[in-house]
Each structure stands twice: as structure tokens, then as C-alpha cells.
């Protein structure tokens, strides 16, 4: 395993409210020497909101976030710069339907990161080849399977060499077989040194891929620690109940 500079994250008193729903309620979290953080917890617990704030897609009501010792400025032009340094993979519909798989990866390289067209093309093609997707380079998303689409989306996210890749339930819209192919790719990236933060319901995967796990419920981080300790010895009732439910079948 390649050990690059590990992910550093410091979140202080982060809150976000959507109308009547308190999505995040004064969340604080300090992360050091970590390569992969997995966020778990019940739906509506705040995982996705936290991830979206980290992605620069949501502005918190209050609180601060430092990524690799650099505070995120929640102001549009600074956020634009921030977004360009992180990769994001959503649950579905990541790719632009009018562009081929290759063009989807080339677009940000060329237009956002100022690669020359030929250079961007090479980078994209190399990535597709590395993940056995080169046969699909010239297909539009509609001609790809759900799993292939997500893998291309992941390739696009890592192509720009981001500081961290943020995954928001990347396999929730996929059947088990496709889920496995996408998780294999994420695991491979992790092993090759990509730092990531992942929201997922795949507890088995979380166990093997995560260094740290945070359990969020009702907008709060109720548990945070090594993967093993959170999964094997949860302290709070909520986490015990949650793990009991999701691991039941």
C-alpha cells in the first residue's frame, strides 16, 4: 500500500438546517493519519449533508471545516476553487448524457484544469484502460450499465488528482453484481493511495476499506473511531441498534 500524506480533517461546530429539518447539529470531528473515512448511520442522519459541505456544494449555517490544514472559505469564488481540488461521486446521474465516457473525463481536465486536449485525452484513456473500461470509451452513458457508469464517474473524479474523493452512496442505485464491481474499483483506488470519504450502507465494505468510521444520527456524530472499535464495540444505544438492524440479514 502506498502511503501518501494522509488526510487531515478538522470540523468544528458545524450546523446546517433545511427549513424545519436540522440536518447537522454542531458536528465536530478531528481526523488525522487517516486515508479513508466512512460515514454510516440512518437515512436523514446528516451523512450526505456533511459530505456535500465537504464537497463545497452546501454552505453551512455555522461552523468551520479545515481540509489538510486549510480552512474552506464558504464564499462562491473560493468554493469554486475548493471544488476543483476534490472529486465527488454521487449516487447516480454523475455523467453528462450528451458526452461519451471519454469526453466526460476529458471535460473537467481540459476546461477546468487547463490540460491540453491531447494530454487530457491521454490521461482519460489511461484511466479507462486501468479500470478495464477502454472498450466503452466512445459510448454515451445511455449505452453503459449502471456499474460502468459509476466507474466512469469515479475515473472522472480521480483524473484531476484530487486531495480527496468524496463518495455519496455510490452503489445505492445498483444491483449486487454492479455494486461489487464499483466497490472493487474503490478498494483498488484506496490500495493505490487515494484518500477518500465515503457515505455507504455497505457495512461489509466499510469494514474492509475504512480506517475510521463515524456514525451520524439526527445531525450529530454519535460515535467516531477505528473501524474495528466502532463496529465491534459500539458504545451508544443508537449505534448498537443501527448496526443490529443493518447487519441482521
Amino acid at each position, binding site marked *: 500500500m502506498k502511503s501518501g500524506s494522509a488526510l487531515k480533517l478538522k470540523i468544528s461546530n458545524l450546523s446546517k438546517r433545511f427549513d424545519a429539518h436540522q440536518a447537522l447539529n454542531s458536528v465536530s470531528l478531528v481526523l488525522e493519519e487517516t486515508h479513508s473515512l466512512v460515514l454510516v448511520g440512518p437515512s436523514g442522519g446528516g451523512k450526505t449533508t456533511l459530505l456535500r459541505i465537504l*464537497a463545497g*456544494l452546501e454552505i453551512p449555517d455555522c461552523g468551520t471545516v479545515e481540509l489538510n490544514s486549510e480552512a474552506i472559505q464558504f464564499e462562491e469564488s473560493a468554493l*469554486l476553487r475548493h*471544488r*476543483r481540488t476534490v472529486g*465527488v461521486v*454521487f449516487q*447516480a*446521474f*454523475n*455523467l*453528462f*448524457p*450528451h458526452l461519451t465516457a471519454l469526453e466526460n473525463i476529458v*471535460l*473537467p481536465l481540459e*476546461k*477546468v484544469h487547463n490540460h491540453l486536449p491531447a494530454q487530457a485525452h491521454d490521461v482519460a484513456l489511461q484511466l479507462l484502460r486501468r479500470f478495464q473500461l477502454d472498450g466503452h470509451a466512445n459510448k454515451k452513458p*445511455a449505452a453503459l450499465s449502471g456499474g460502468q457508469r459509476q466507474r466512469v464517474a469515479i475515473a*472522472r473524479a480521480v483524473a*484531476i488528482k484530487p486531495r480527496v474523493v468524496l463518495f455519496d452512496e455510490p452503489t445505492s442505485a445498483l444491483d449486487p453484481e454492479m455494486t461489487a464491481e464499483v466497490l472493487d474499483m474503490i478498494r483498488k483506488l484506496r490500495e493505490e493511495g487515494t484518500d477518500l470519504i465515503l457515505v455507504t450502507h455497505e457495512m461489509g465494505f466499510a469494514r474492509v476499506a475504512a480506517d475510521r468510521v463515524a456514525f451520524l444520527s439526527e445531525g450529530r456524530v454519535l460515535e467516531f473511531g477505528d473501524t474495528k472499535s466502532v463496529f465491534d464495540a459500539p458504545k451508544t444505544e443508537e449505534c448498537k441498534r443501527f448496526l443490529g438492524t443493518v447487519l441482521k440479514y
Partner: protein
Amino acid sequence: MTALSNHASPPGLLSKFAAALVAAAMVAAVFYFSFHQITYRWNWQAVLNYRSTLLAGWLMTLTISITSLFLSTLIGVLFALTRRSEFLPLRYFGHIYVELVRGTPLLVQILVFFYVVADAFHVGNRYFVGVLILSLFSGAYISEIVRAGIESIGQSQLESAKAIGLTRAQTYRYVIFPQALRLSLPPLVGQFVSLIKDSSLLSIIAVNEFTQSARDINSITYSTLECYIPLAIGYLVLTLPISLWTRSLEKRLRFET
């Protein structure tokens, strides 16, 4: 091949051609019968003497239509963007413009714009004013077509564009417009057909376009049908190819999605 699958297969080229011929013959029969009944005395020679006037009018209509086509597209796109502006006065301005233009007859717009607005601003060139009015009129419809195209791009795509760090302008350029344009193309082309026909109304401010030239010739020769039938054919020459093109565009779009 069984009889059943044979029945389900689409008609061949030959049978399509035959069907078109029959349909055309039916239309021709109706017209032939009608003209035969009124025992009209044709006088083509009188009109033929003025064919160069008619041709000049046709060319003028072509020029006006092409110029207005570009100008109205520009106006349409700009006003579609105002409808998405965060600056409220601009958005409402776009809204009022579209509703006013779409809710009133073109005839009234031409008269008011030419005799009141253009006059007040000392713009005397009726061709310039004519093109401008037509473009503003058609632009209102085009802006609604473009707006619908833009709004058909899902929120998830805008989110993706934002996430990969595209600016707002880049999102329009690389994500929204390429897709919106493809979706808007068939209705847009239909609007261009209307634009060509609507240009005939400019004759009321004495723009020497196709319809005006037919009216002029008619007032000299008193051979109404001989003037207006070539007029109809002249418009069809412009509009029919465009309509057929729309049809093929729609078909292609259906296959792609």
C-alpha cells in the same frame, strides 16, 4: 416469412410512393373541381409580364427571413437567459416582453412599433424596422422554446457540473446549451416556418416583400388568383424543405434517446 410477420413489416418504398401519388391526386382533384365550378377566366400573360417584380419580392422575403432568423435567435436566447436571471427586474422584464408579444396580434405590433416607437426614435428605414419587429415578435416565441430546453436539463446534471468545478458560464457552454439546443431544434425550426409566413404582414408598412409585390401586381392587372397562387407556391418553396427537415430531425432525436 409468415403472412403475419409480413403484415407487420413497414410499407416498402414503392407502396409509399404510390400512396403519396394517390393523396396528391385527391388534393388536385378537389382544386380542379373547385376552379372548374367558378369558371374563372385565367389571364396568366398579364402576371407573367411582372415576373421580375414577383421574383424581387421573393428575394426580399428571403433576405428579411434569413436576417430575422439570426436576430430573433439571438433575442430569443438572451430573453431565455433573463428568465433565469437572479436580478428580479430583468427577469420580470423578460416575462412582460414575452407575454405582451405573444398575447397581441403581429399586425398591431407592426403598426404601433413603426408609426409610434420607430417614429419617436427617428428611425425611418422601413426595412430595418420591419426586420426588427419581426425579430422581436419571433424572438418571444423562441425564448420560450429555448427556456423549455434549458429547463429540461435536470438538477442532477447542474450539480455534477458544479461539483467538477465548472463556472456558471462553462456550465451553460458545455452542459446546458449542447443538450438544450438539440431538444429545442424541432420546435425552433417550426418557428422559423412561421417567421417566413409572418413576414408577409410587413406589407402593411409598404415593405416591398413577396406578398406586397403580389398585391402590387394584382392592383395593376386585376388577375387575383394568378398573383396569389404563385405567391403560395413561392412560400412553399421556402417552408416545405424546412418542415421536412424538422420531421427528419424529430425522427433522429427519437432514435438517440
